[in-house]
């Protein structure tokens, strides 16, 4: 709850003073909280406002020209209600108390039966019509002109709305400017949130807006004016009109070029102030300016959030990169190379080289179903578990069985992980492995023969109690083991063709003499040539282990 004082000076300029603390003094002297040294109508210490509990009170300090409270001379201390007008010299002070929680009770939409609706509004206009008119006629001077000195009000709006402010504060300013421009004191501003109209600012309470009015404004972008409710027999007898003593009303859309984002509704209980078409026209244009300002603020906020997200993803990618080998280990007898490229900044592929205590090297590749952030989170968990597994010797089938059970607990029911684990003995070339539902890796023999390593079991994370089987394949000098993720074979070119296993196999056989690092580069180059600019659809990982002569 922020109490504020709305201060209007004789030129009609408004300022807002937030009431903090429990006391506020006003006068000509410089030691007042609000000091007006130039104002000769004020005494040096003219009045004091004091807070007792929830309320503010005002007391005249024996001033020469006195203090008026709601047009009556203040003789003793008086409690201020919201909306009370305190006049000193030529200043007007109005107490405003922010009670945001109560705003929503302020507006009631009445579904009114057709026969209760009254005759059509006395004046309607749309922004499009106004703009067209403006181009023809332009602001005309003189009484009776439909342009009601818009320039001053619009200049004010333009100036006041330029300041960067959070959207919520803008709503208040916009309503105040609107009320002022048409000389009204009661009005409400509603904005669309998730398809529903919410009160964002109000002056006065209990507004009854007919659903017909609301719908015409929101759906047809029509501005409506009822100049004199009393002249409409049906309308004048509607209970809400009588209760609220509404005499004249206007409703205009808050609209940008693309859409309607809310509405401003203003009514007047005064017989002497009936709204005119000129008022409606002005209000329509002001609401348009205001709406564009609101949209701009919202877009700026959304853009800022997007940038923050982008930075977070970049950082996440850097972190995830730490979980992959920066360089393969140097192992006598084995030539190792690996490559990974996520499709988005973070991905679901994982690979690792881990020299084991028993002299063997564990070579693994895992692929979480899907891609992006969800896959990346599971990848990180997989990495941690494999890290632990690699610290103690074990037979691949048993390790994978354990891994599967652990991953089942963390995998959502629509995610699984394909996984290939191998242990290679660099001295003997023996390669024991377990393939859990992953694309079968190739073993390219020095003589050009090709084998695929499929044995093991299904994908990880789905069935907790699975027992996996272990298999072996010997690697002789010159033989190459190539493990890849499906981002390689499923890479598309512009025609929608896939790279495919056959093409990959051909490349591997043709290049079986190359070092591990060269082979990875060749595969990448061929991939790039094939996709020819088409964007990657999945994370890509390649792992090569070549047995060199001892």
């Amino acid at each position, binding site marked *: 709850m922020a109490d504020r004082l709305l201060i209007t000076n004789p030129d009609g300029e408004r300022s807002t003073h937030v009431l903090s603390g429990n006391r506020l003094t006003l006068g000509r002297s410089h030691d007042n909280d609000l000091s007006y040294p130039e104002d000769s109508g004020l005494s040096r210490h003219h009045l004091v406002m004091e807070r007792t509990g929830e309320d503010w009170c005002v007391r005249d300090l024996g001033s020469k020209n006195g203090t008026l409270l709601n047009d009556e001379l203040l003789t003793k201390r008086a409690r201020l209600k919201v909306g009370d007008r305190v006049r000193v010299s030529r200043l007007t002070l109005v107490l405003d108390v922010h009670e945001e929680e109560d705003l929503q009770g302020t507006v009631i939409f009445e579904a009114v039966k057709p026969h209760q609706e009254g005759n059509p509004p006395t004046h309607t206009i749309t922004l499009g019509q106004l703009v067209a008119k403006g181009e023809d006629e332009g602001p005309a001077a003189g009484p009776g002109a439909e342009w009601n000195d818009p320039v001053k009000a619009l200049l004010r709006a333009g100036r006041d709305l330029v300041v960067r402010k959070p959207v919520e504060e803008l709503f208040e300013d916009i309503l105040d400017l609107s009320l002022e421009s048409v000389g009204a004191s009661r009005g409400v501003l509603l904005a669309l949130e998730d398809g529903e109209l919410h009160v964002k600012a109000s002056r006065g309470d209990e507004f009854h807006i007919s659903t017909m009015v609301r719908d015409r404004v929101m759906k047809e972008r029509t501005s409506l004016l009822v100049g004199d409710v009393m002249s409409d027999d049906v309308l004048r007898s509607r209970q809400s009109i009588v209760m609220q003593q509404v005499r004249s009303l206007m409703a205009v859309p808050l609209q940008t070029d693309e859409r309607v984002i809310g509405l401003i509704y203003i009514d007047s209980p005064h017989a002497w102030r009936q709204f005119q078409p000129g008022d409606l026209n002005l209000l329509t244009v002001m609401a348009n300016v205001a709406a564009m300002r609101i949209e701009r603020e919202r877009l700026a906020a959304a853009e800022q959030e997007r940038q923050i997200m982008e930075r977070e993803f970049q950082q996440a990618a850097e972190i995830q990169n730490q979980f992959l080998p920066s360089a393969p280990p140097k192992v006598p007898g084995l030539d190792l190379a690996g490559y990974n490229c996520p499709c988005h900044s973070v991905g679901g592929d994982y690979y690792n080289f881990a020299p084991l205590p028993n002299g063997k090297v564990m070579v693994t590749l895992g*692929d979480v179903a899907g891609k992006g952030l969800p896959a990346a989170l599971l990848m990180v968990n997989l990495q941690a578990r494999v890290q632990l597994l690699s610290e103690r010797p074990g037979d691949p089938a048993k390790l994978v069985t354990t891994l599967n059970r652990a991953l089942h607990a963390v995998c959502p029911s629509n995610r*699984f992980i394909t996984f290939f684990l191998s242990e290679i003995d660099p001295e003997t070339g023996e390669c024991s492995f377990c393939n859990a539902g992953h694309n079968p890796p190739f073993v390219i023999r020095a003589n050009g023969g090709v084998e695929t390593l499929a044995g093991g079991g299904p994908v990880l994370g789905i069935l907790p109690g699975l027992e996996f089987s272990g298999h072996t394949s010997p690697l002789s000098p010159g033989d190459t083991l190539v493990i890849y993720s499906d981002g390689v074979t499923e890479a598309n070119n512009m025609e929608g063709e896939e790279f495919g296993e056959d093409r990959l196999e051909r490349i591997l056989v043709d290049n079986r003499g190359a070092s591990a690092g060269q082979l990875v580069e060749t595969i990448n180059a061929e991939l790039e040539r094939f996709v020819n600019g088409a964007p990657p659809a999945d994370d890509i990982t390649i792992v090569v282990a070549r047995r060199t002569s001892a």
Partner: protein
Amino acid sequence: MSLEIVTREVADVTAVDLKGRLTLGEATGQLRETIRTLVDGGHKKVILNLKDLEYMDSAGLGELVGAYTSLKNSGGALKLVQVTGRALDLMQITKLMTLLEFFDDEESAARSFN
């Protein structure tokens, strides 16, 4: 790049045709929604007919597994009919055929529900 889902009742079994492409995104979301509606509605016997499924990625396969699990958890069962092409390749590589039951036609799938 879209998926069309057609649901029909055949005797006391619900058959769901998946037509087009089942890939990560809107399509997997649609399938998830469809299965959730069926589970909430108390359907226990569901057949997924993949005859007109042109393409599936690993996320799509994940969604099939998710569907299988949802039905199993609610006391029902999911059977697959006419798994061919890309869908079959994926199932073979991932060895998910041990989990998901395949049939050549809806009648034999329907008979297999106990």
